[in-house]
């Protein structure tokens, strides 16, 4: 096993109606609800991907944050990028699960929506990102009570050091009712921030 000194190459957060890349503010709109905010952010980021509008809120959140970090890396469509995805949250796909449940609760008015049902798993978000960026890499979605920096650190380190991935996009995307939060960071052999548990917690708590 080749042990690399790993770095955090870049990081992105979306919360409180703000989109941040590293410590730079990319977009802010305090006047709107999540649905309008994420649509405006999508347009501001010049993300030309009409399927975005069909996604549930969790996928929109993860997709946009991931797109900001991956877009500079995946512009060459011929290049195979071995970037693993390791995401986590506490609410799983609960918000969409509730919408699906609402559509099937009345036996006299039983019309489940296929477009909602397909998002009743949190890892669908990883599929959306993989399709857009042509990733055929490892991906996992974990459910924790709280952001678990130690677990993400161990998992990303293991993926790179065992040669399963060249880089790992890690983090936390959570959406439940009006609360939402995305924090993703890219673990690589390049970058200026040391990849360790303390730095991950620092970036997460100061986002």
């Amino acid at each position, binding site marked *: 096993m080749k042990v690399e000194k790993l770095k955090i190459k870049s990081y992105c957060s979306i919360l409180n109606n703000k989109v941040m890349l590293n410590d730079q503010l990319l977009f802010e709109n305090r006047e709107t609800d999540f649905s309008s905010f994420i649509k405006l952010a999508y347009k501001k980021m010049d993300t030309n991907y009409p399927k975005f*509008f*069909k996604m549930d809120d969790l996928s929109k959140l993860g997709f946009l944050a991931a797109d900001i970090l991956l877009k500079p890396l995946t512009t060459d469509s011929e290049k195979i990028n071995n970037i693993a995805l390791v995401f986590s949250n506490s609410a799983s796909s609960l918000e969409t699960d509730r919408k699906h449940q609402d559509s099937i609760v009345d036996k006299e008015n039983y*019309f489940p*929506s296929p*477009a909602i049902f397909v998002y009743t798993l949190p890892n669908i978000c990883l599929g959306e990102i993989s399709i857009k960026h042509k990733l055929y890499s490892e991906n996992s979605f974990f459910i924790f009570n709280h952001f678990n920096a130690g677990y993400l650190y161990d998992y990303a380190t293991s993926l790179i050091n065992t040669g399963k991935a060249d880089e790992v996009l890690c983090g936390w995307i959570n959406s439940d009712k009006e609360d939402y939060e995305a924090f993703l960071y890219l673990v690589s052999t390049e970058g200026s921030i040391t990849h360790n548990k303390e730095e991950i917690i620092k970036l997460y708590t100061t986002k």
Partner: protein
Amino acid sequence: MSDLKQELKEKIITQLNLEDIAIDEIADNDSLFGDGLGLDSIDALELIVMLDKDYGIKLTDPKEGKKIFESIEVMSNYITTHRTK
């Protein structure tokens, strides 16, 4: 444009979340799938549910949808003939 065709265009845009498409951009004979509106297989299932819920038409074979959802014109004719509500 007939009321039903107008209604179908509105429903397709709203229910399939076609954010960047306006009603007048959908011609009656445009293909809904493939090179036309670019709908996918989940959209096809959503249209099957819409036929059932809004017009009382139950498609027992999803493959029937391929013909029925060819265009707004074809859909409108099919609904007019088969609707139960």
